[in-house]
C-alpha cells in the first residue's frame, strides 16, 4: 500500500506532496529493513502446534462464559422466587 501511495505521489510535483513522498520513501525503506530482521512465529504455526494453544484458550474462555451463564440463571431464579413472595 505504501509503495502504491508513493508511486502516486511521484507523479505530482506539489511541494507539500513531494516532502510527504520523501517521508514515505524513508518509512518504506525502514519497513523493508525491519521486515528482513523481524522474527515472526512462522515456524510455530507451520508445525501446527499453535492450534493446541488456541484450543486451550478457547476452552478456558468458554468455561468462564459458561460460568457466567450459570450465574445468570441462578440470579434469574432468585429474582423469580423473590417476586413470588
Amino acid at each position, binding site marked *: 500500500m505504501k509503495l502504491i501511495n508513493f508511486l502516486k505521489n511521484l507523479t505530482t510535483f506539489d511541494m507539500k506532496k513531494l516532502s510527504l513522498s520523501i517521508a514515505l520513501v524513508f518509512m518504506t525503506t525502514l519497513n523493508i529493513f525491519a521486515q528482513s530482521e*523481524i522474527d*515472526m512465529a512462522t515456524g510455530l504455526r507451520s508445525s501446527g502446534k499453535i492450534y493446541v494453544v*488456541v484450543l486451550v484458550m478457547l476452552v478456558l474462555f468458554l468455561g468462564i462464559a459458561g460460568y457466567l*451463564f450459570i450465574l*445468570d440463571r441462578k440470579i434469574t431464579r432468585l429474582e423469580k422466587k423473590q417476586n413470588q413472595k
Partner: protein
Amino acid sequence: MRKSWWKILAVVLISLVIIAGLLGPVPALFLLHETIRNIYFHVPMWFAMLFLYTISVIYSIKYLNTGKQEYDLMAVEAVNTGITFCFMGLATGMLWANITWGEAWPNDPKLNGSAIATLMYLAYLVLRNALEEEQKRAKISAVYNIFAFPIMIVLLYILPKLTDSLHPGSGGNSAFSNLDMNNQLRPVFYTAVIGWILIGTWMFTLRYRLRIIEQKQNEIN
C-alpha cells in the same frame, strides 16, 4: 433465551477473536514482532472500562435528577465492574511494556495518568463505604462521580496527547494511523472491542441484579 442473544453474541465474538487473533495475519513490526497481537486483548479492556464508567456517570446524573435508589446502585456496580477491567488493562499493559519498553512501568504520562485515574475511582468506592447514611452516600458519591469522569478522560486521553509518550495514541505516537493500525488488524480489533464491551455490560447487569435482590432481602427482614 430471548433476552440473552447479546450474551451469546459476546461469547461468539470473543471466541472468534481468540481464534483469529492468534492465527490470523499480522504485520511484521519493528520491536513488537508477534506481541502486536496484544492489541486484540489489552486495548479492549480499556474500551470496556470507558464504556462502563460512562454508564456509571449517566446513572449518577439520572440519580441526581430523580433520586431513585436503583440508579445509584447502577452507578456503583458499573464502577465496580469497570475497575476490574481497568486492573486487567494495567496488568496486561505492564507485561507488554516490559517486553517492548524494557520496563514494566516507565515514567510515562499515559501510564501515570492511568494510575491516578484508577486511584480516583478507588477513592469513589472508599468514599461510599465511609458514609453511613444511604441518601447522603448516594448524593455525595454521585457528585464525586460526575467530577471524576471528565478528570479521568483528561488524564487518560487528553494530557498524554499533549506531551511525548511512549504509549501509542499519545503525542507524536498515534494509535490509529495506517502505520500501526493497518487493515489486517482492524476487523479483529473492532470485534474484540464490541465483544468485551458486551461481556463487561453482562457482568455489570449480574452485579446490579444481585444488589437489587440483596436490597429487597434487607427490606423484608
